[in-house]
């Protein structure tokens, strides 16, 4: 079959363009009929005389060789997909950077599309909620104390020889030192009442107050035996200064100097 020179050049340029498109746009390289295009080049070759024509032939051949290379890569990637195992994922996650991983996700992400809207009913609900809101300047009422409960006033604390001042910090440190020493002697922990009970009711209340601070701020761990109800104190210098706050425990005191907790 004889092809006119102009048509032959057009044909070979089309092959070069096709190979470039496959590489640049990432089309499936198997879309190119490599064997068919090589046959075309073979048939056209005897007609080429000028160096420019031979250069075009060489370029087309190089393009087809690149397509074969892309086909190889494509098959490798596909076969890896089929045998995608956890180890391969771990390796790829280790190899890729955060932006590369995010880029991989964006290529596969088809986000949900939704429209938020407001109905008359929701607007009515919102208006009713707004009307019921208390002004920010009006602070909520403190909860009423239950029967038998009393709030320790500043005056009451002073009468116990306590105040939230620098002295108080010193008293806390002193109490903690005593507690550590006694616990160490007792093998790590001591019964709560053995430590808190003092010569007078006033001193017992003051000591209980200081221990409650130490327990709240992580200096000491207060535990209760579930069977006997016995309370124990264990110094925890490793958590000192870290407020616990998981639970609270009310320990009643009576005037006999012994609690029932």
């Amino acid at each position: 079959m004889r092809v006119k020179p102009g048509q032959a050049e057009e044909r070979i340029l089309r092959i070069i363009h096709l190979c470039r498109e496959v590489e640049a746009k990432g089309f499936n390289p198997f879309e190119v009929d490599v064997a068919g295009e090589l046959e075309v080049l073979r048939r056209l070759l005897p007609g080429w005389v000028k160096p420019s024509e031979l250069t075009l032939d060489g370029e087309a051949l190089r393009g087809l060789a690149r397509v074969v290379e892309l086909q190889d890569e494509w098959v490798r990637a596909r076969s890896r997909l089929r045998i995608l195992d956890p180890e391969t994922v771990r390796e790829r996650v280790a190899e890729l950077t955060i932006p590369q991983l995010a880029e991989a996700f964006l290529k596969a992400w088809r986000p949900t599309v939704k429209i938020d809207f407001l109905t008359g009913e929701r607007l009515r609900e919102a208006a009713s909620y707004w009307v019921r809101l208390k002004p920010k300047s009006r602070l909520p009422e403190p909860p009423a104390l239950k029967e038998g409960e009393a709030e320790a006033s500043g005056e009451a604390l002073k009468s116990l020889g306590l105040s939230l001042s620098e002295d108080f910090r010193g008293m806390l440190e002193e109490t903690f030192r005593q507690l550590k020493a006694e616990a160490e002697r007792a093998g790590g922990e001591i019964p709560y009442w053995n430590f808190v009970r003092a010569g007078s009711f006033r001193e017992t209340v003051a000591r209980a107050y200081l221990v409650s601070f130490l327990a709240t701020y992580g200096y000491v761990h207060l535990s209760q035996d579930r069977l006997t109800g016995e309370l124990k104190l264990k110094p925890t210098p490793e958590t000192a200064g870290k407020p616990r706050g998981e639970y609270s425990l009310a320990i009643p005191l009576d005037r006999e100097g012994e609690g029932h907790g």
Partner: protein
Amino acid sequence: MAEEASYARRLKRAAQLLLLQRHRTPGVKGWELRRSLGKNYMKIVRMLDGELEKLGLQVKIVYEDSGETLDEEARLDRARFLVTFRGPLPAADAQASGWRIDDLAALAATLAYLASKQGKASRSEVERLLASKLPSWRVSIILDKFTRLGYLHEDENEVLTVGWRAKAEVDLEALTESLLTISEPEVEKGRGEA
């Protein structure tokens, strides 16, 4: 003529049901569509999908993993129908979506790992995988967030599976392919386009 008008009316209604968020989770269940659109609601859904294609969107159906053997009608009744993008999100839009880049990276790694493990893996395994890339204090927070948003599901034995939202929004095959084939120049190109 009357039939055409009826289809047009039901098409509009289907679009409203699927796009307007009524519940905390997006989309509607098949039984809700059947109740509003009639017995042949799937025909309307397919018509709507055709219309949405022109806008680069699609109707996505996520079937429920109940473990029961159900006929197609019952499966569709329980399935969640929602509208998603038809193709990938442009990089510029992704930046505006409010997601942190390390969250996207963590979700890519987690879902690819789950895919490689036939859809499920223990939470501790996934935590170890992510801790190789992110500070460990972030890992747990991120996994809880993905679970809350529906991208992951965690059972009482702390086993993670692909959540309903990932099934709807993430093309797992495309994810694993891009994870395996992505290279540095490609990332640079992506940034350039953004």
